């Protein structure tokens, strides 16, 4: 459904180039595509409007019209502007990395988490608790003020046990403000550095509950108040962020469920409306799945361009350089055998599986889903490696040798089955075909068309 913006812009500009001239209307056409792309990514309408206006001002002045590939130029301007709005470079910590959570205040430092129902507050509280405990050696106390949702306090208590972070003992029937006061009292008495206040989910239009959270704020004057919001949030993000900012005084935002495939436009909406930084992103249900926020990564995602930069970084970190060089050399020659496939499988496994890697590539959501659906998991990769290692050297160099009886032998040797081997060989053939195509496309083609050019059937790119 969502094509990458750069593809769409290329279409716009391809049409234009055929006519050879570029009028005001043409620029307007590009901006319409940008508007739609942002809306499809769930950026809220008022924010989209401002954004497009700003980009227009920037783009028209620049050499967009004269540039060789106007589509790419526009994407670049849009991308850079997005990064800027999402936080850009200004939010660097002292070490140059993302700023993270500022706890620069007399202990115990109170940190309150607020947000809608089910946004991930309790999980995030535990994640932050664990992070502060292990990375910053802080003594952390967590307290649940959620007397609304059944077993919410018990949930935080269990997470505390899992992470080894202390939680305030539960007193049945105690009201939120009283719990918060007691938490600070205990923290002072027992020398805690940080108190994490996990609150009940509330709709920003629920006056009673908004008054309650305001009262907690008054009683505890938290140094940090974090809005915890779901990356899947749609247009309502602006209303929610605005209301919480007004009523609870936000200092930052945590975006959860970034491990999903939502484009995450809510990040832009909330950042633009509150002016507050996104301090963390939640990347999974596991208690250590909390990461600092990188504006460029989310920008790429919102635009559907993926994050080529972080892909390259990660590949460089994990891939075995010799393997990579060897593969590159063989691709040069247009050759690709089962040894190469085996080294690919090894690399994929090291990189945390194909699907997490594909998620970072341009506009590849649909293909990724197909692959996820096909269950290409790490276990499968390991089995496939086992199959290849049960082959003889000459079989690996020349897969054509693999007749029925050889396949039976390999199945027995690797503890797999003949159909599995057949599937692997089919996959190998597809990949070999792709590699030939890649060679033909060359570096430039690959940059322009993204990986989709290599995928059988062209992935989800064509209208």
């Amino acid at each position, binding site marked *: 459904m969502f094509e990458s913006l750069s593809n769409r812009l290329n279409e716009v500009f391809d049409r234009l180039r055929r006519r050879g001239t570029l009028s005001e209307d043409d620029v307007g056409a590009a901006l319409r595509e940008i508007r739609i792309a942002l809306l499809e990514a769930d950026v809220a309408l008022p924010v989209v409007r401002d954004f497009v206006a700003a980009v227009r001002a920037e783009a028209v002045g620049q050499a967009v019209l004269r540039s060789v590939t106007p589509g790419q130029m526009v994407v670049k301007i849009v991308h850079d502007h997005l990064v800027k709005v999402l936080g850009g470079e200004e939010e660097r910590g002292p070490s140059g990395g993302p700023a993270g959570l500022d706890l620069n205040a007399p202990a115990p430092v109170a940190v309150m988490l607020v947000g809608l129902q089910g946004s991930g507050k309790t999980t995030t509280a535990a994640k932050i608790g664990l992070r502060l405990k292990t990375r910053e050696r802080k003594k952390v106390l967590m307290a649940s003020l959620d007397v609304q949702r059944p077993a919410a306090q018990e949930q935080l208590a269990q997470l505390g046990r899992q992470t080894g972070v202390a939680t305030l003992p539960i007193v049945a029937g105690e009201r939120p403000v009283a719990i918060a006061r007691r938490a600070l009292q205990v923290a002072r008495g027992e020398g805690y550095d940080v108190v994490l206040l996990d609150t009940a989910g509330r709709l920003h239009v629920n006056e009673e509950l908004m008054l309650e959270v305001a009262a907690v704020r008054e009683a505890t004057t938290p140094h940090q108040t974090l809005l915890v919001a779901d990356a899947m949030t749609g247009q309502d*993000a602006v*209303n929610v962020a605005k209301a919480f900012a007004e009523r609870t005084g936000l200092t930052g935002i945590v975006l959860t469920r970034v491990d999903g495939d939502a484009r995450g436009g809510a990040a832009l909406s909330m950042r633009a409306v509150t002016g507050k930084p996104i301090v963390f992103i939640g990347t999974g249900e596991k208690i250590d799945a909390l990461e600092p926020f990188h504006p460029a990564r989310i920008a790429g995602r919102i635009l559907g361009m993926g994050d080529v930069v972080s892909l390259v970084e990660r590949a460089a970190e994990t891939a075995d350089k010799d393997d990579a060089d060897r593969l590159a050399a063989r691709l040069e020659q247009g050759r690709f055998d089962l040894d190469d496939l085996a080294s690919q499988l090894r690399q994929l496994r090291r990189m945390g599986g194909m699907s997490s890697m594909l998620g970072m590539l341009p506009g590849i959501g649909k293909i990724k889903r197909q692959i996820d659906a096909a269950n290409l998991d790490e276990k499968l990769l390991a089995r496939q490696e086992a199959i290849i290692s049960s082959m003889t050297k000459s079989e690996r160099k020349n897969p054509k040798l693999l007749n029925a009886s050889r396949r039976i032998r390999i199945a027995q040797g690797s503890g797999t089955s003949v159909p599995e081997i057949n599937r692997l060989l089919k996959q190998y053939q597809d990949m070999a075909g792709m590699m030939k195509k890649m060679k033909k496309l060359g570096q430039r083609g690959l940059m322009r068309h993204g990986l989709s050019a290599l995928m059988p059937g062209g992935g989800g790119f064509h209208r």
Partner: protein
Amino acid sequence: MRSWWRSTPAAEDAAPPEPTAPPPPAEPAEDERRGWFSRLRAGLAKSSARLTDGINAIFTRRRLDDVALGELEDLLIASDMGVGVAEEVVDALRKTRFGQEVSPEEVRGALATEVVRLVQPVQKPLALDVAKKPFVILVIGVNGSGKTTTIGKLARRYQDEGRRVVLAAGDTFRAAAVEQLQIWGERAGCPVITRPQGADAAGLAYDALEMARRDGADVLLIDTAGRLHNKADLMAELQKIVRVLKKLDPGAPHAVLLVLDATVGQNAHAQAEIFRQMVGVTGIVMTKLDGTAKGGVLVSLAEKYGIPIHLIGVGESAEDLRPFEAEPYARSLVGLEA
């Protein structure tokens, strides 16, 4: 005035049991209703106020020209309807009304009609087949969407109808998810089948169905852990639950409810598509419509997949569950009183 989420007898699902007890005294019931009624009304009024204001601002004594239609389209987009469908709706309006002097009331009525046209076909109550004993309902969706709460609400409703309900605490992953469902079980007065955290959810579902059968239950509601649709292993786990249930009853699960949060944006499409592919969704429940989120994505989902929409959640209490009704939903979406 009748509010749109209040159930009409016609919209209620299959044959509630004959009332044996005398009807409750009118006064307290009325009071109670006013409680949630005014609460919800306030919430909904706010959610449509923005749209209403917008439409009034655009169309008071105004010609329906391209600018006006563009602004109208923006207002629909702000409900999460999606650019494509919002364009369609507005185009329909353009065909019949372009250039006319129109009042805000007229425009809203026409818009609502268009929205109704799209969602009417999917307005379907969740019908229990009493021949199935138990009728097995599997509840699925992404994390935090409201699955457990919806089960709690349904349990209460079926118990109130005099049915025997069993709950299965299939979220064996999230901390205290089992305890949460147990509390809902206590509230509704029905047994909850549990296993320790970390246990195999499919095994639990199997046991629960066996037990519910043995006990002659009418309805078995199976809770599941929240899962993002892009996680292959978790989707496979869901398929396993379905497979295992079919071993005992080839027709089970008789209903698979996808729970969507009203605040969700365009990602609802991916959710619907994948959950449907993987386990076959028979109906949608949309929760949290008591906020300012309008859940406009239902309109584009209806057009694209045609999955029945059964119910809506309008609060955190057991009684905050209503049948989905196209007309009032559409009218509220465009800022008209139901």
